[in-house]
């Protein structure tokens, strides 16, 4: 799996700075492929660090 700790950290940092940002926004802002962002979000959710907004 390509998503590494660095990618996860970047995604987490972005969400902390931009709460409510969409996955597509994160992908475009960080220039990380949407598949990698989706995987990173899944891992971060599993770790309890982020949650999907209602």
């Amino acid at each position: 799996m390509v998503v590494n700790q660095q990618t996860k950290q970047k995604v987490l940092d972005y969400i902390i700075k931009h709460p409510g940002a969409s996955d597509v926004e994160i992908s475009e802002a960080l220039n990380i492929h949407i598949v990698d962002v989706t995987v990173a979000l899944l891992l971060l959710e599993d770790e309890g660090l982020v949650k999907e907004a209602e």
Partner: protein
Amino acid sequence: MPSYRKGSKQQYAVKRKKVLSKVEAKVKKAGKTKATKLPMPKPEASASKSAATAPSSLKGGRKATLRFKGFGLNIKANVRYETEKVEPLIKTAYVADGKIVTKKFIGPKKRVAWVDESGKEHDKSKVQQVQILDDGSMIPIKIEKTKVIDVEAVPAKIMDEFHPDSFLEVWGQDDEDIDALRDLAFELKSKGMVGAVKKFSHGYGKVYVAFIRPILSKDGKSFVLEMMLSENKKKHRRWMPTEKALKAKKKAEEPKVPELW
């Protein structure tokens, strides 16, 4: 806990630039490292032979090269792919005077032309494809047919987040290619993963994200690689409450009449 939302923008895949992470770059650099095979369940020899000696079902399709690095595998296989054609479960038709009829352009011969909003025709040679950015600006792009399918392993549930556009079947061209795909299929299956293809195109102006899912036959003697193409992630907008709406409302009670006498 910070939160995010699942978004959606059309033609997302077209907008993406291929980004190689440092890890990917390292893997690419060390591309010539010898792959070590992991012990994995193999189908019986007879099954392998039967798959390899079934040319009628493994002919045709479009050619590409599939690459995968991971799980100790370093795969580069010649593959073919084709859109899965399915017959409709319910067949319908239009009939007039007892004969099946279809809509067709008839009468004076028509031609296809490139026209702008005002209806003015533009020369075909001047037409080029562009990507329209969020701010309305346009940058020229060239979308070519994918010849190398780069696969990365991702958790299987990632695939559910993407909107399916169409499904293809991917198969090996020769015995060694089928063997390589078998290794990939068993590794993905055993780890609960699917293969992600970040960029795939037929070359007709659309770019997709694709996911390759291995499907094993019930007897485990044969397998299929199904590739789902997606243009974007799913976006659900019509969320309904899980609590019953009627249950929440209190049942209207009969008015109580006070007894005066």
